[in-house]
């Protein structure tokens, strides 16, 4: 139903030979993959495998030392973050990064910084509040006073306010109780149904493989395994290394 759109001529995201260096040390070493329109793709891997670095390079928060990033068929390799947001690619960063001193409403409205038309802004706010539960009753509250789960909801809702076409999610389950994780992933699936393309970075391999269509496994900055999630779930290497099942 909401699978990849085969008719789209170019993928929404295309990464080729991406390298990210931190002071000469390579965190990402030649990663290539693509995400088609309407697809949910997961990047999985252990702590320090370079997942967050890949996401940051995709939105330009860290520079790509080598390789290219194409967004919606256009070369986006060197352009600054705010212009990638304008193209339609938005990252919900690890640790949420909400504006703690602003109210929930102000946070959400800032998400619409590039699409600030007051008429549609109000409509979008209603739509987003319907997609991400529990924010509606907290609009006047300072963002910093929300619980971890609510902050994650807020970060996702804030990104949606800008009407992105490609949503990059970095560890949405981080530090949350299992019940909240289920709720947030429920929201992600709902959001995907609206036609958004999603790249999901997640340490919780089981959850990621249940949510996404395809996945890539990252080990020390390189993709070592790729495939459809239904196949990867049964792959003995995945079972042993990430799902905690003995061979």
């Amino acid at each position: 139903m909401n699978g990849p759109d085969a008719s789209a001529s170019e993928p929404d995201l295309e990464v080729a030979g991406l390298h990210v260096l931190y002071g000469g040390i390579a965190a990402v070493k030649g990663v290539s993959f693509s995400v088609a329109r309407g697809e949910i793709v997961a990047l999985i891997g252990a702590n320090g495998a370079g997942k967050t670095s890949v996401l940051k390079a995709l939105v330009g928060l860290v520079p790509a030392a080598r390789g290219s990033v194409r967004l919606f068929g256009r070369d986006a390799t060197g352009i600054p973050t705010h212009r990638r947001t304008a193209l339609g690619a938005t990252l919900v960063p690890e640790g949420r990064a909400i504006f703690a001193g602003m109210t929930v409403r102000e946070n959400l409205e800032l998400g619409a910084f590039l699409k600030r038309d007051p008429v549609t802004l109000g409509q979008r706010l209603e739509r987003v509040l319907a997609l991400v539960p529990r924010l509606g009753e907290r609009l006047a509250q300072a963002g910093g006073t929300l619980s971890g789960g609510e902050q994650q909801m807020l970060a996702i809702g804030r990104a949606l306010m800008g009407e992105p076409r490609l949503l990059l999610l970095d560890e949405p389950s981080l530090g949350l109780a299992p019940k909240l994780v289920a709720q947030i992933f429920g929201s992600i699936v709902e959001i995907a149904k609206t036609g958004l393309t999603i790249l999901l970075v997640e340490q919780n391999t089981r959850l990621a493989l249940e949510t996404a269509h395809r996945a890539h496994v990252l080990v020390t900055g390189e993709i070592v395994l790729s495939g459809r999630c239904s196949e990867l779930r049964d792959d003995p290497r995945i079972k042993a290394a990430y799902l905690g099942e003995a061979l």
Partner: protein
Amino acid sequence: MSEFFQQIINGLSLGSIYALIALGYTMVYGILKLINFAHGEVFMMGAYSGYYLASWLGVERYQAAGRGFPLGLALVVLVLAMAASALLGVLIEALAYRPVRSAPRLTPLITAIGVSLFLQNAAMLLFTPNPRAYPPILRELRFAAGGVIVTNIKLAIFVVALALMVGLHLFVQRTWTGRAMRALSMNIDAARLMGIDVNATIRATFAIGSALAAAGGILFGLDQITINPLMGVLTGLKAFVAAVLGGIGNIPGAVVGGLLIGLAEQLTAGYLSPDYRDAITFLILVVILVLKPEGLLGVVRQEKV
């Protein structure tokens, strides 16, 4: 008692000038964590641009004819000097701070000191080191009430400063650029992800802070009668103390800090000795740094992991 009220009026008027300058320090620090040591020189340049603009608009002719400078023209002087200083602030940011923005924090601090010294010396070269009498863009009128003398100049200083501060508050709270500034001061990467152009927003911050400093410069010239190329050193430092006192990075804090420093200075000069008027500011700095380093309205920032 009238003596006391006199000091309060003078203190509030001087303090509102400090507050205008302190706002520029605090806005830039809030976003870049940079102490813009050249800000005192932007204040000085603002005073000089007001001086030259007023003379270009013929303030001497009005004076010679025994007439006051028209209020409309005085406002033109204020607005154009603010615009010129905004440009100067943007230029300083582009040339001296942006190239070293990702360098260790000591580097931009040193370039700031460099810009400050450069502007002081450029001003001595351009305007000569001699103090100049500030043109009477407002003709002084005195009102006496119960032993307290209020001049229209002290009132105008307070009113202009207050109007600018209210304007700034509305700008920061209500406009999208103002929101972008607040977002930047809270989380620069998250602001980028919202689609905020960080460079443009920092430029706007420097423009606004510098324009406010220029207004402070003109009001200072009116208040203190003379200006000179080194006027930004001590006054800039006091305004910086005001920003620290209120809580650096905090906009209402800069206003409160500025008014308190102005009051403390006037009361010290009036009741203790004029010799201590400068010392009291720095005594306050030491006390606040020891007792409440985050400032009166500042909050202790927790570094998130």
